[in-house]
């Protein structure tokens, strides 16, 4: 039912969203790895420091089937409902769309009747997704101005191409494939947009048959995993440009565009370089928007990506985007005896940047190094020159850096979520079941940690908040009312 006033969690601009009240609850996707045939779940954590149950799980919704591999999820509606060209602000941020990355089943959870005990109100079966959109393995979900967009890793047979499909924001039915002309794009993973520029960006991981059996060393060494970003015309749904990072850069994952719609740039994390096992963060931007042509910054490390040919007919100079490396994270030497079989020959721990997140004011970038267990905070006020402002270690392949509450940890900082006001950061430690097993063969013991961020940078561990899981592994975290990666805005 439409409401009389806009949903109070919708903010016209990121500046206003920074003033949002602190979240009282967090929703966490947990993967059941206990081998007990039990389903995955969305669990609910109390994040209100004044509550007697702060830092504990206060709710749980099991999925109807086992083996979904819950991963990422998103809201039915968010601040983009205020976008002026398709305004519909009198809807509620009420439903969580929770895809199973392995099962391709999409669950719709209603958090309104009891926010601590979401109810499953709809399940879209993989056959329906395949029939209507031709996709499977749904991944990232974003509430757009004119519908709910979701990415998918591949086709129903486990191959490619992966892409994006759209769901109706009233009925939550799958409407169909988003792309009109996908050009050379084949691999898919994450997507993001610059609503002020009518541009959509997609990234690349691998098709289902490249990832579901674990990280395939042959494919990796051949540079066959994702290595590029794709720039799309959001209105015409056409491929505009490929931003190729080069084949040594493998797995171009999380996209974090600037929240301010006038800022045509964003950051993307790259998991590993085949040259030296390093990881990196790259800055994509509209050509000429960063002041000067950026050539000097590029020349410093010679890391400028090649931009592929313009594929669409709309490739005017206006549509030219560019990408450059702005953060380099080297591998750390390690005693081979401590390394899992896959890494022993290298004698080093790769940082493995698996997630990054950008604060709502576009000022702080958080970088998870799942391999080394390091978590970094950068001031990216100048996006060309990120400045390291804090670093913390939790877990890691060899370091096993401890938490004061739980002692030594395994897994490492992985999914990051940042509160709208930028003051609280939540971390979970599991990546993807079959990949967890390769890097942490003893099995990832699930945890979620919370850090407090200073107004001008700096990180401090909140010892009162630490979730531990038995036989389950947490993945993405979504905060009540929205968070730094859930909402997009049409006003600066």
């Amino acid at each position, binding site marked *: 039912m439409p409401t009389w*006033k806009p949903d109070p969690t919708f903010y*016209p601009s990121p500046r206003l969203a920074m003033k949002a009240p602190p979240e009282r609850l967090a929703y966490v996707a947990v993967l059941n790895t206990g081998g007990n045939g039990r389903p995955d779940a969305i669990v609910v954590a109390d994040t209100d420091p004044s509550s007697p149950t702060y830092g504990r799980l206060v709710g749980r919704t099991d999925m109807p089937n086992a083996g979904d591999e819950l991963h990422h999820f998103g809201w039915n509606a968010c601040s983009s409902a205020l976008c*002026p060209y398709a305004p519909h*602000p009198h809807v509620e941020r009420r439903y969580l769309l929770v895809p199973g990355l392995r099962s391709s089943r999409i669950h719709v959870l209603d958090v309104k009747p009891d926010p601590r005990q979401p109810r499953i109100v709809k399940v879209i079966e993989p056959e329906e997704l395949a029939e209507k959109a031709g996709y499977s393995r749904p991944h990232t979900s974003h509430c757009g101005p*004119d*519908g709910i967009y979701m990415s998918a890793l591949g086709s129903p047979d486990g191959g490619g191409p992966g892409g994006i499909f759209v769901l109706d924001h009233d009925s939550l039915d799958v409407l169909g494939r988003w792309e009109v002309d996908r050009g050379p794009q084949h691999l898919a993973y994450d997507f993001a947009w610059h609503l002020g520029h009518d541009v959509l960006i997609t990234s690349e991981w691998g098709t289902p048959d490249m990832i579901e059996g674990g990280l395939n060393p042959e494919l990796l060494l051949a540079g066959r995993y994702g290595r590029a970003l794709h720039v799309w015309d959001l209105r015409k749904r056409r491929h505009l440009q490929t931003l190729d990072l080069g084949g040594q850069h493998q797995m171009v994952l999380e996209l974090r565009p600037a929240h301010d719609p*006038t800022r045509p740039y964003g950051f993307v994390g790259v998991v590993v370089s085949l040259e030296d096992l390093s990881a990196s963060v790259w800055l994509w931007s509209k050509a000429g928007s960063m002041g000067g042509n950026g050539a000097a910054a590029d020349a410093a490390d010679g890391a400028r990506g090649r931009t592929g040919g313009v594929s669409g007919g709309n490739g005017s100079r206006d549509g030219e985007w560019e990408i450059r490396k702005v953060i380099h994270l080297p591998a750390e030497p390690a005693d081979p005896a401590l390394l899992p079989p896959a890494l022993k020959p290298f004698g080093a721990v790769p940082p493995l940047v698996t997630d990054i997140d950008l604060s709502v004011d576009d000022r702080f970038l958080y970088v998870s190094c799942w391999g080394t267990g390091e978590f970094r905070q950068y001031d990216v006020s100048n996006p060309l020159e990120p400045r390291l402002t804090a670093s913390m270690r939790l877990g890691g392949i060899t370091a096993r850096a401890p938490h004061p509450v739980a002692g030594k940890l395994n897994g490492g900082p992985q999914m990051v979520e940042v509160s709208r006001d930028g003051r609280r950061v939540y971390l979970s430690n599991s990546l993807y079941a079959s990949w967890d097993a390769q890097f942490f063969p003893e099995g990832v013991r699930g945890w979620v940690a919370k850090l407090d961020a200073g107004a001008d940078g700096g990180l401090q561990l909140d010892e009162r908040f630490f979730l531990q899981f038995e036989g389950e592994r947490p993945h993405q975290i979504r905060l009540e009312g929205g968070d730094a990666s859930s909402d997009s805005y049409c006003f600066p």
Partner: protein
Amino acid sequence: MAVFDAWPWGAAALLGVYHGVNPAMGWLFAVALGMQEGSRAAVLRALPPIAAGHLISVACFLVILGTASRFIERDVLRIAAAGALTAFGAFRLALPRAHPRWVGMRVSGRDLALWSFLVSGSHGAGLMLAPLMLGPSPAGASHGTGAHDALDAGALFATVGTRLDGATLGDATLRGAGLLGIHTIGMLAVTAVLALLVFEKLGLAFLRTAWVNLDAVWAVSLIAAGLLTFASA
């Protein structure tokens, strides 16, 4: 008779104001474009296409109504319009978020005019003027003057609640165009004032609480206008 003559002009202008106030009709888009460019000029540039799209949308509807009136008895037309208003209002209540899907933030003047045209049409802006254009039933309104004119396209505009016995077709069309103009000026004036006020002074925070569900108000207005027209038919 001066008051009697003036009311449709006032009503047309007021309906323009009513349309202009709705953030979904354009002023918010103008603000967004101004903020995106960081310039007041961008706000001002957006206004003429928004007004033009609205005008064309309403005009299209009136021409259709006028053409229909050449072939259909005025009372039948009034009932048909009443039914259309009520049904469309009910549709807007049931499916309030039917909106264009292809638009974005990088729009040319032509895009913006087309957007405004579609939004005005899909919100029933022209339809809302129907009762005004058709006027009250002669039997109900003029108590025994006995006049029961079948409308023609020009006289439709001419009989906007008033009686223009003996007016020529040209006069009537001119008068109708004038009413449309007044309506659009009312809409444009409010759109411009709100857009500039929000862009320069107010900012957007107030929208979070002040943006009441005008779609619902509109839907109810449409239904009410439909029922009133029924009652007067």
